[in-house]
């Protein structure tokens, strides 16, 4: 008979953390609130997941490639402000495209810093985080822009098929598209090779620099999309719109199971992580928990999960595959002796 010890329970919780989190939220929500387990709640969770979801989606290929992008929040702020502030001059739709363009441009800057000037992505995007945030405050004078046409973007949060809204459809569609790219195409599979072992990827003839530049531009584009969607649906272009969303986005990706060490991850897992974190946020708001508390538990979840991942993952420098096979071998060994 199998004996359950704390270690195995811990392993199971870490491995199936998405389901554990969702189940815990559902049970606690159903227990504390009468009308929590409804389709309306699900719709609200998915709807609000869209903005942080685009940030997290952009971050997923970045982490798979073994990089990090800390500037996504600042890029989102710039894009959000541009989307609204340029409406009077350019019209609603062109301004939204400029917002996306701002995201792509910022991604190109990051890509140049990392690939051409060889600045580690951590430091490069830390600097562009500060530059982007300061730029947004400078351009806007610290004041949010209000849309002259507030009804234009409202459709993004309309009801769609009972549990969806147009912006959650966009997010889920983007996650599915990214899943097909990452898992179903040669270029997606090459990205995992880049993140698993860069020297091996180089000797396999993969254009490593091209892939790394590409994921930064994609991440900038996704952050731009998050900014455009957030700005249009709230009819406000805030120069600090994205500043508090970096940590929730990273946390959502990590909850999904994508590893900071590179070489592993999936956009569907990110979708799950975003929904799980969104469910937790919605639950706390329904229960009247102040937003500071959300910062505390988001930070706690992030630190706890990366610590557990690290302990489960073992030492630096080994590839995840060898570690995984080592872990499997160890488990079967233990299973045989106990």
């Amino acid at each position, binding site marked *: 008979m199998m004996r359950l010890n704390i270690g195995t329970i811990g392993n199971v919780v870490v491995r199936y953390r998405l389901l554990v989190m969702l189940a815990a939220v559902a049970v606690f929500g159903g227990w504390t609130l009468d009308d929590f387990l409804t389709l309306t709640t699900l719709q609200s969770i998915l709807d609000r997941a869209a903005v942080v979801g685009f940030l997290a989606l952009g971050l997923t290929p970045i982490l798979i490639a073994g990089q*990090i992008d800390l500037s996504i929040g600042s890029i989102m702020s710039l894009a959000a402000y541009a989307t609204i502030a340029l409406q009077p001059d350019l019209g609603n739709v062109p301004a939204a495209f400029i917002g996306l363009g701002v995201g792509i441009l910022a991604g190109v800057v990051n890509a140049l810093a990392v690939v051409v000037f060889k600045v580690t992505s951590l430091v490069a995007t830390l600097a562009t985080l500060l530059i982007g945030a300061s730029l947004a405050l400078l351009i806007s004078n610290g004041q949010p822009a209000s849309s002259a046409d507030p009804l234009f973007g409202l459709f993004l949060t309309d009801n769609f098929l009972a549990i969806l809204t147009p912006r959650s459809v966009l997010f889920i569609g983007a996650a599915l598209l990214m899943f097909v790219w990452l898992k179903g195409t040669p270029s997606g599979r090459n990205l995992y090779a880049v993140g698993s072992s860069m020297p091996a990827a180089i000797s396999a003839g993969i254009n490593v620099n091209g892939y790394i530049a590409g994921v930064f531009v994609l991440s900038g584009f996704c952050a731009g999309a998050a900014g455009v969607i957030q700005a249009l649906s709230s009819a406000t272009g805030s120069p600090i719109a994205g500043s508090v969303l970096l940590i929730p986005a990273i946390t959502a990706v990590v909850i999904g199971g994508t590893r900071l060490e590179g070489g592993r991850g999936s956009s569907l897992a990110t979708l799950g992580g975003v929904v799980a974190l969104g469910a937790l946020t919605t639950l706390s708001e329904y229960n009247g928990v102040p937003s500071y508390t959300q910062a505390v538990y988001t930070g706690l979840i992030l630190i706890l999960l990366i610590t557990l991942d690290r302990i489960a993952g073992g030492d630096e420098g080994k590839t995840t595959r060898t570690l995984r096979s080592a872990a499997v071998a160890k488990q079967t060994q233990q299973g045989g002796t106990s």
Partner: protein
Amino acid sequence: MSLVKSDPNPGPAPAGTLTAGSVLSVLSIPLAIVALMVLGSFVSPSFLTARNLVNILNAYSAVGLAAIGSTFVAVCGGLADLSIPANVAMGALVALGAQTLVGPVAAALLGILVASLGGLVNGVLIGYVRINPIIVTLGSGFLLLGLSQLLVGGGIVYSEPSAFGSFVAGNLLGVPVAVWTFFVVALILHIVLSRTPFGRWNFAVGGNYEASAASAVPVRFTRAAAFVLTGLLSGMCGVLIALSIGQARPIIGAGYEFVAISAVVLGGTSLFGGRGSILRTVGGVIILALISNLIVLIGLPTPSTGLATGTIILLVVAVDAYLRRRTGAE
């Protein structure tokens, strides 16, 4: 991620070797300071007055303490501590909030202790569990800042009038106590970094982690200690500011992590470990203080400082990366 293993030249910084490059890098900080002062005297007649210069230093002394801690973090290959604003806030809020309970002096010490505990959490996770420092301190900073906001409910804590409070906020021999604190701490920790075994461990760990571990350097302890020290100094920074302005709120240290990082890289300490010095960081702090004062005197809006700081970090690190590649190729 192999961020810290690229240095082909492990061990202490090659301070004794005299090359054209090293002479230039020794002189570059004083030259930059002089150039900024000349520029400032053209911009405004009030720039080169003793009062303005003391004010400039006073404004950057507290954050300078965090920059000193960040130098240890950078030298030992720990990149940077992004939880500085959170530990500054914790130190400041506890130092003022606990005044009525334990008295002003004990409250200040308690604030520093609480901030050091924040540093300890970072240190354990980075040094012993070996998680990426940026992610750890980003997460712990987010958590601790949330906690500090929870403590005060987003409000402000005011200082009780006390002899200790007015001493910290006042002058000693015509120079603000904050400036004294900065220079005394800088001098002590300069000696620690350049003359003690602990200092040498930092260089060794940052220069070549594996080789240091093999030579019985306490690699985990060293890296953890650098983060505890930064937490402690961030707490001191918070206490100094809170007592100087007589109030504290959670955003009291917002942006200080970037000021600290740019002071470190401006001084020529590599963010990738293995070389650096406290005196150079002091130079970096002075340069930043002058730049920010110039921005105010010219009349540019405040966020320009952030723009300048971010650009400086990017440029200096790009040059550092280029120079490392070149020496690595030789």
